[in-house]
């Protein structure tokens, strides 16, 4: 197995996992918030938010990457703000790859969570509020756990997208080995050079195996939740 992939590929694999994991984890709260606002909110600008959330899906990934570069690059306004406030740099770091993956997976995640939220019986939220739970507590203790199937589906989609994201990532943070060169980027560059296909397909198989494991785990969690919910 160690022979099967070179050290650079092992590094890329590890990096992909890290990027997809953090992208999923960090975007889940925002994904939930956006889905909640879209499902429950009646505020003006709901449509605007809806459109904003879907943008990364509609635009070619390179455009998203380009806009990320303009906004979150070292000299971009948001990039400077994050560096000044949190000491967090995205440009040409794995954090930037995670940001790109998170943004690209965001519409998928929000849709999935929203379908679950729309299916929750509002009567349960009413019941919680009569029991003295503030809106925030209702959200945390009733809405959130009941949206679990959607959160799980959203996380799987986000993670899978994180494993596969290429266009926005390479445009935003380039293809730096050990730093931003994820499996998807390795695969893609291999396909750009003559004779790179065999290794590229081997790496693709590795991605698929990882995604398969994630899917199987998520299905098991979801069916356990269903069984528990029933009795």
């Amino acid at each position: 197995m160690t022979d099967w992939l070179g050290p650079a590929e092992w590094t890329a694999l590890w990096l992909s996992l890290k990027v997809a994991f953090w992208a999923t984890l960090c975007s889940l709260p925002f994904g939930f918030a956006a889905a909640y606002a879209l499902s429950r909110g009646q505020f003006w600008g709901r449509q605007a938010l809806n459109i904003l959330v879907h943008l990364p899906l509609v635009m070619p990934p390179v455009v998203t990457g380009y806009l990320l570069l303009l906004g979150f690059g070292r000299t971009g306004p948001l990039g400077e703000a994050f560096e000044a406030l949190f000491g967090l740099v995205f440009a040409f770091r794995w954090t930037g790859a995670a940001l790109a993956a998170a943004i690209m997976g965001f519409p998928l995640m929000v849709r999935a969570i929203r379908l679950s939220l729309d299916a929750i019986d509002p009567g349960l939220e009413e019941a919680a509020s009569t029991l003295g739970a503030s809106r925030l507590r209702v959200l945390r203790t009733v809405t959130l756990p009941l949206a679990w199937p959607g959160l799980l589906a959203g996380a799987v989609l986000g993670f899978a997208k994180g494993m596969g994201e290429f266009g926005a990532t390479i445009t935003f943070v380039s293809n730096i080995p050990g730093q931003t060169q994820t499996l998807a980027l390795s695969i893609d560059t291999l396909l750009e050079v003559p004779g790179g296909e065999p290794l590229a397909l081997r790496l693709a198989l590795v991605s698929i195996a990882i995604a398969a494991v994630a899917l199987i785990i998520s299905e098991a969690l979801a069916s356990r939740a269903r069984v528990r919910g029933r009795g």
Partner: protein
Amino acid sequence: MLQIDLRHSFPDFTLEAAFDVPAGITALFGPSGSGKTSIVRAVAGLLQCDDADVRLGARNIGRLRPHQRKIGYVFQDARLFPHMTVLQNLRYGGRMDEDQVIALLGLDDLLMRRPAGLSGGEAQRVALGRALMAGPDVMLLDEPLSALDGPRKADVMPYLEALRDQSAIPMIYVSHDMTEVARLAGRIVVLDRGRVVVQGAVEDVLADPVAVPYIGVQDAGAVLTGRVVGHADDGLTKVETGIGALWVPGVAGRAGGPLRIRIPAQDVILSRSKPDGLSALNVLPVTIAGLQEGRGPGVMVALEAGGARLLARVTRRSALSMGLAVGQNVHAILKATAIAPQDVSDR
């Protein structure tokens, strides 16, 4: 004491109701669509009324958010949280009197189960316990038993009685079932098309022939309050009521304890002379205080003795042939076995 004054317009329905709810249970009674649920939702803050004045003692809670009102609400569908165990559900609003509530409602064996595995009656008891453990200042019960069939209803009823007897907060109890109302409530507010049409003590309203049209002929019947005199070996209990001593099927109350008995009007037989050799144990001398003809073949007869009232429903034909008239002295015959256990409650 809860004081309610509401006004709200739906597209084709207007609610305009004001009434007080003292400590103890006040029943909200009325036909489907008369606004009972709307009132309860308004009190809980789940319905934003055009105009809502809800006073609880000195506090005006009418403009608070639902979670700030300290109100226990038991919905018709139990609305348990499916992702929590019974115990987690119970503790959701607080842990007030946890052990007592669990014991009172007989929930010990259910604590670790999930709501999906409960029968309807069990679920409703858990919902009740959950509302109680939040330590509410008011309880709102919206048809808490109507989804349950007879035997399951009978399971939950004693818990509601125990609750009424052991807490001193105002409770609103919505129901279509006069048996429940008479057994549980001290006061009754009758609604029709969004307005209060009759209200008062249950004993007065149910024995009032004028209220019969709102309550329904079949549900009419006086409620007697009495005191347990003693229990006999053969399973009967002697109860002293205003109208005389009654034998009823054995109840749990200790001697001297208070008791309420609902006597449906259609279960009372009248006799001009004192009958003899009858299987009915209760024969009471009474005076006719009023006669009211209905639309059907029946006549509602108000009876009085010792300051207490009873209602009897007889056919018009019997009323004529017996020459019933106000002021006449007759005997009221009640079967002990016809007094259903669910119509007797120990308060």
